[in-house]
């Protein structure tokens, strides 16, 4: 029987952690782009659009990510779209994070004083000019810290992709444990790796928050 050294365990986990990082990045980028589109659409203050987006956000914030993964993975195959575990994970994490990103950014825009909009209006700026030169730069500065903060949630959320069979850090840990039967050691390594990914992000978020407060 083959023997696993600690280094073998860690090495395999590290290889799997690449997928955790890649999946997180995809979700961050996809969710970011999609969330930004939702935010811009919503800032146009069309009642119908706003209602639709509100509904979207409620749905994706009100259902556990695990169920969203199941529904994407099994639901898409029901309508004849064969998706692999990777695609299903990317799609559901993107939708999930877009709802949260949108909510964060909408909050930042709404936190700006109404007077900023009024000043732009009285100066004759168009809606797009107002967004581009006045609203977005200020809202962005405010949103950096909570956005980075939420990316930690995304990283941890990728662990759920293991249940639909996508081999990332958690799934790799389960598989290795099935071979070595040392659950505490294996999952301690897994936990350590998650922490090593998330902790710098938390630090970054905290640093950005402080820096932002000092700037005002």
């Amino acid at each position, binding site marked *: 029987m083959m023997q696993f050294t600690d280094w073998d365990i860690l090495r395999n986990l590290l290889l799997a952690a690449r997928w955790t990082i890649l999946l997180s990045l995809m979700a961050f980028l996809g969710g970011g782009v999609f969330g930004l589109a939702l935010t811009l659409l919503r800032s146009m203050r069309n009642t119908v659009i706003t209602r639709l987006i509100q509904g979207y956000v409620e749905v994706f914030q009100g259902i556990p990510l695990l169920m969203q993964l199941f529904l994407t993975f099994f639901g898409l195959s029901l309508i004849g779209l064969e998706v692999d575990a990777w695609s299903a994970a990317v799609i559901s994490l993107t939708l999930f994070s877009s709802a949260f990103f949108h909510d964060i950014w909408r909050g930042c825009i709404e936190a700006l*004083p109404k007077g900023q909009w*009024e000043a732009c209006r*009285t100066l004759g700026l168009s809606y797009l*000019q107002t967004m581009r030169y*006045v609203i977005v730069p200020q809202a962005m500065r405010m949103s950096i810290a909570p956005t980075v903060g939420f990316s930690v949630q995304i990283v941890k959320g990728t662990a759920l992709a293991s249940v639909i069979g996508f081999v990332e850090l958690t799934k790799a840990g389960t598989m290795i444990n099935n071979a070595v039967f040392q659950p505490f050691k294996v999952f301690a390594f897994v936990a350590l790796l998650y922490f090593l990914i998330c902790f710098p992000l938390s630090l970054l978020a905290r640093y950005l928050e402080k820096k932002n407060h000092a700037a005002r």
Partner: protein
Amino acid sequence: MPLVSLDKVHKYYGDNHVLKGIDLKVEAGEVVSIIGRSGSGKSTLLRCMNGLEQYQKGGVVVDNQSVEDDEYKLRLLSRSVGMVFQSFNLFPHMTVGQNVMLATKLVLKKSAIESQKLTEELLEKVGLSDKFSAYPGNLSGGQQQRVAIARSLAMSPKVLLCDEITSALDPELVGEVLKVLEQLKVEGMTLILVTHEMNFARDVGDRVVFMNQGKVWETGASDEIFANPQTEELKSFLAAVR
């Protein structure tokens, strides 16, 4: 033809009838002070003159343009009507110079050099020529408000609406802002101000409009109004603020 003309303007917030048929004409070069208790509709009236508030009945014409709920028309109107706010509403992420130049570049399509030159002139006029590169957060309230005035003037408006522009200032900073307004009057600018500065309204203003319960309750030449108020409401108001 008056520069600003309101004709039987009615405004409701839901069931709340805030403006009850306002008639008001302001000629070019006039300085008109709108006074009254809080809740009397002064600010709402002012904000109807540049489309920040919609009215439900009547008509508002400023510089021969009808003020309507139409994005494009309101943008055109913004070249004739400037506004200064109680809370300054400067853009905190831009320098003083950038604040003043933003709309001259984007809306008036002036070149960078032209905008810069105009901005320097205007900042000198409000006594802040050394603050071009400062950020609003590092200025006093009085200085910020003077930047806001310069920002409005950069659009060369025909009338400047001032919405309680000294109310958020520490008392010792009020004078420097009022001085700028005085200078503007000398230069012939039309000013319509909602104000609590009764001395300013009396000494600098040409005409006073006293608002009460959503109506123009009493109006007349400044010295007349203060020396000789006709209605009980104005008498008790003046007694209260003095």
